[in-house]
């Protein structure tokens, strides 16, 4: 079955909650938070209503990309336990409705960003949506175990967009924040894919544990955690962030490394026994929130 032929049973008129579910609200919280941090640490202060609009546009753009991802992946979502209850595979919405909603929301978010802040930020927002949909979802996800390594760049854009919305420019700090999320994405997703491996295998998605096995995935998690730690410490080492951020980055990254080493040492085969992997996955989400929170707090104290 391919993504272009999948059509669930005839759907009744979709409920508004189904449209909300299309935007992956839980993923959106992390996107909003990192975008907000990018905006807050920028040297130019926007009026509150324009800052709010910029964050709203980042959230709507992420929601649009998520909706288009679900439109394309309805066939594989139907095969995975984790995603089978989403609006399309569950038959609560027509595929075309999701496509129209995603495209409409994407245009709306980009145009509103351009009008409210600047067209440079709007262009980066557009690139991030297109990258997520075309490069990650359509091109890489079903073809290569490197899917989330390259595709992870899409999720790394929000702090750059937040910064660009405030300044109309891009500088070293937002690029380092981009690098941090880019390098954080593989350990985060591979920890998850270790304990939902059978789901990905069933759906034919070539995630690293499916293609290369658990042992290689565990090594790769640690290998990516090392440059991620370097990217986390770089803003402080280069004098772009203060000691509060430096201490938080050192402690949080040391804990991340420790958990990645525990994953490397793990020999668990059954998902139920993968405690180290689940711990790393849960901590990785907290890590990103804490890192960007520390950066914003550091800038606020230093101001």
């Amino acid at each position, binding site marked *: 079955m391919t993504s272009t032929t999948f059509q669930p049973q005839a759907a*009744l*008129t*979709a*409920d*508004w909650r189904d449209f909300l579910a299309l935007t992956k609200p839980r993923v959106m919280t992390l996107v909003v938070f990192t975008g907000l941090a990018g905006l807050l640490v920028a040297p130019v202060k926007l*009026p509150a*209503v*324009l800052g709010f*609009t910029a964050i*709203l546009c980042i959230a709507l753009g992420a929601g649009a990309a998520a909706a288009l991802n679900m439109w394309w992946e309805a066939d594989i979502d139907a095969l995975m336990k984790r995603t089978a209850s989403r609006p399309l595979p569950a038959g609560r919405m027509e595929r075309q409705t999701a496509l129209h909603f995603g495209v409409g929301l994407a245009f709306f978010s980009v145009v509103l960003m351009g*009008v*409210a802040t600047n067209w440079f930020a709007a262009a980066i927002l557009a690139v991030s949506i297109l990258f997520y949909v075309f490069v990650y979802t359509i091109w890489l996800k079903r073809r290569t175990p490197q899917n989330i390594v390259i595709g992870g760049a899409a999720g790394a854009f929000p702090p750059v967009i937040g910064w660009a919305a405030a300044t109309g420019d891009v500088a070293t700090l937002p690029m380092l924040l981009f690098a941090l999320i880019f390098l954080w994405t593989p350990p985060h997703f591979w920890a998850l894919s270790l304990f939902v491996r059978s789901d990905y295998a069933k759906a034919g998605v070539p995630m690293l544990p499916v293609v290369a096995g658990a042992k290689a995935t565990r090594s790769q998690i640690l290998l990516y955690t090392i440059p991620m730690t370097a990217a986390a410490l770089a803003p402080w080492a280069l004098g772009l962030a203060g000691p509060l951020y430096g201490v938080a980055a050192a402690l949080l990254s040391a804990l991340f490394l420790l958990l990645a080493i525990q994953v490397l040492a793990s020999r668990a085969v059954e998902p139920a026994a993968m405690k180290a992997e689940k711990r790393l996955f849960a901590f990785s989400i907290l890590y990103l929130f804490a890192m960007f929170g520390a950066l914003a707090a550091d800038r606020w104290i230093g101001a």
Partner: protein
Amino acid sequence: MTPAEQDEVRHRQRSRALIMAVLLGAFVILVYAISIAKMGMKG
């Protein structure tokens, strides 16, 4: 479509229309606020 399904469809259409109206109202207010803020920046 059974009468129960028709009722459900109408109920969903009504709630979607209501949410759309609220969102449009919020959008109008937002555009107004953006205009005022941008005029303030130029001034």
